[in-house]
């Protein structure tokens, strides 16, 4: 059974999730990269973000008549947003962050504090992401930030698969895999030295 989360997502539902779970989201998703994080924190949100899904993404879009069409919309490297993300989570309370590569200790703490999760969407899967985007509901700060950095509001259906990689209980799949990799590296080194 696929676990589909509809926005707005309640804190209790997100608290049930653990690292390794696979989910999909339907409803309202908004994009924000480095510059958008800074602008929203300085000027406030143009619409309520609580319970919504924050996507680290700079999409490829084109205009078809009056409407925007999303061509490709894969995730960008999330670590660039690490310095502003804890403050962003506390200020606006999105329930799910989608990105790639994972985030640091400070974000992990903030996720536990506000009740949110970080999910990994497959890097490079831009065509798959675009297919699950059903429409563009709006765009903010387009003139000022440009297409990839603007805040895009997408209506999505079964957006995913999303692997819960950082949960609201202080666990991070990236930290766990990192420890395993270091351990394996030590073993491989020992073998190479013997050989």
């Amino acid at each position: 059974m696929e676990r589909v989360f509809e926005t707005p997502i309640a804190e209790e539902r997100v608290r049930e999730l653990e690292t390794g779970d696979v989910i999909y989201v339907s409803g309202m998703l908004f994009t924000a990269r480095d510059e958008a994080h800074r602008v929203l924190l300085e000027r406030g949100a143009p619409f309520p973000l609580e319970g919504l899904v924050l996507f680290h993404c700079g999409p490829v879009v084109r205009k078809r008549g009056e409407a925007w069409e999303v061509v490709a919309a894969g995730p960008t490297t999330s670590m660039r947003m690490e310095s502003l993300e804890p403050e962003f989570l506390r200020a606006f309370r999105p329930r799910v962050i989608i990105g790639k590569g994972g985030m640091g200790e400070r974000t992990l703490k903030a996720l536990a504090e506000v009740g949110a999760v970080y999910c990994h969407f497959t890097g490079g899967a831009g065509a798959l992401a675009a297919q699950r985007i059903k429409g563009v509901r709006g765009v903010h700060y387009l003139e000022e930030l440009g297409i990839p950095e603007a805040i895009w509001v997408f209506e999505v259906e079964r957006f995913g698969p999303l692997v819960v990689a950082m949960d609201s209980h202080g666990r991070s799949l990236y930290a766990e895999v990192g420890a395993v990799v270091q351990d394996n590296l030590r073993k491989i080194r020992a073998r190479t030295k013997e050989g």
Partner: protein
Amino acid sequence: MRERIVSELVEALRRAATVLPADVVGALERARDREEGPARVQLEAILENVALAREKGVPICQDTGTQTFFVRVGTRFPFLEELRAAIPEAVRRATEDVPLRPNTVHPFTKVNPGDNTGRFVPHVTWEIVPGGSAEVHLLPKGGGSENCCKLVMLTPAAGIPGVVEAVVEHIADCRGLPCPPTVVGVGLGGGADLSLKLGKVALLRPVGERHPEPEVAALETELEEAINALGIGPMGLGGRTTVLAVHVEYAHRHPASFPVGIVVQCWADRRAHVRISSEGEITVAGGA
């Protein structure tokens, strides 16, 4: 003739951006079959994405890469001037037609001309060989994986075990950043610049095709097994498959130095190939 070359090169650029070569798809399918949990979910999503891009004729990844050309041209090839001029023109046209994301930024002014051309780009590596035809290999190279390339200057005493240690350690450091499962090209010897160039040339080979010399092929196998034993897995979420293949090329080295050029390519190992005969016949193929 020039116009014909341009339009066939545009076709090759389109194919590279939208259709993943069969050898890469095969390797991804085999990887999916041996994985479970989050690793399998990633590979299923990748394969669904690849099928979707092919069916709709849209780019596989939003980062359509830096358009990189390797040309092997015969000394008697009659259309050299036409080919030279056709390459940047084809890149401009493909940027509009496919579309490709404009990926060339001036390092000082940050101005992006918007057509994937600029100073020294698209870069072409020309190799002159005997004969009358030309082979154009196209490698669109994504930024995330290019950021994980590295040059290591080993001491010659470290030898081949030193190469294994340097490559495995570096890939361990990269974790999920280059969008694994990756293809890793390793260039040995030749000097700092040539070792990295050979690492990139190694990526032109179909995934899994071994180097013809047994010693080199054995190093490829050893590196693949060691890297996959790290447990980084697809997208760095853990698993058995961190590389789809490791390809090694080499050149003779200076007695005092042992350069190792490590080139990392994301799972979207996009390639295309154009052949132009001395009579002006042009054939385009996706993949190698």
